[in-house]
């Protein structure tokens, strides 16, 4: 790849990167995972009562919070861009999601068939940190290699999640704590990104256009 080609490739990648310039992507995932962890930490009786409103509230917050931040802050400061993922990227993402769902379903089906025996539970214990470490690796690859402060999020996310099985909690609690660690880390990362974005950018003068 020539220097000119690299430069063009960088320009082409910018609209995709801009989608998370304000940290709303991480924030939405962080809110969802933290919300799920908080929900599972509630007493079972209360969980049964608040299940539907809790899920509705989480989905509403995850949907409207990023939109509101973009509309009120981002578009006014650094403009609007409608990014369309390439067809190949869309297919790749859909294939990855389908594979993840298939593997999770197969794992759960196997665990149920084995009557939640020791082996199946062991697999679930391993699956929790493996899932969190995969998210931390993706975060490090996509974001932390560009901004060094993000390693302060990626490392605790990976190390914390890897250490959760050592607490010896039941697998359900292990999953809940892992959700909490990843969720809080992503939420914190989103908030820091938003604060840095606001500090680095200014709304243009009224006659900007």
């Amino acid at each position: 790849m020539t220097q000119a080609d690299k430069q063009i490739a960088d320009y082409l990648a910018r609209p995709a990167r801009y989608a998370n310039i304000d940290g709303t992507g991480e924030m939405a995932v962080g809110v969802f995972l933290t919300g799920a962890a908080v929900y599972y930490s509630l007493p079972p009786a209360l969980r049964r009562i608040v299940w539907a409103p809790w899920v509705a509230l989480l989905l509403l917050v995850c949907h409207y919070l990023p939109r509101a931040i973009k509309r009120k802050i981002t578009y006014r400061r650094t403009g609007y861009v409608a990014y369309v993922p390439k067809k190949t990227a869309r297919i790749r993402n859909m294939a990855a999601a389908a594979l993840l769902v298939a593997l999770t379903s197969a794992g759960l089906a196997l665990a149920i068939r084995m009557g939640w025996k020791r082996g199946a539970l062991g697999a679930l214990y391993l699956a929790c940190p493996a899932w969190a470490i995969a998210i931390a690796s993706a975060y490090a690859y996509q974001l932390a290699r560009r901004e060094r402060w993000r390693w302060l999020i990626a490392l605790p996310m990976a190390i914390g999640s890897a250490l959760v099985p050592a607490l010896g909690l039941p697998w359900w609690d292990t999953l809940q704590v892992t959700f909490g660690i990843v969720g809080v880390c992503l939420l914190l990362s989103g908030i820091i990104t938003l604060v840095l974005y606001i500090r680095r950018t200014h709304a243009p003068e009224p006659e900007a256009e």
Partner: protein
Amino acid sequence: MNEQMRSLSGIDRVIHEPGRLMITALLFAAEKADFLYLLHETGMNKGTLSSHLSRLEEAGYVGIEKTFRGKIPQTLLTLTATGRRAFEEYRGKMRDAL
């Protein structure tokens, strides 16, 4: 060498200018963008960006739509089908030449 020279001579001068190349590439990766976004990403001043956009519009590469976001005026820009083809051809020719 002759092949390379022939490729270079056929290069699109409208897109080849660094500022316009940046604008075209940014719009190529997006469905649409507003003036403020291009101002932020390119680091140009308003006058320079406007003049490049006018040149691209004259060539039929960029579509400009004036609209409102609430009460705030907004200029939405899109790369036309001609613009997309021209950009792809430009990239191909540059790869052949270099």
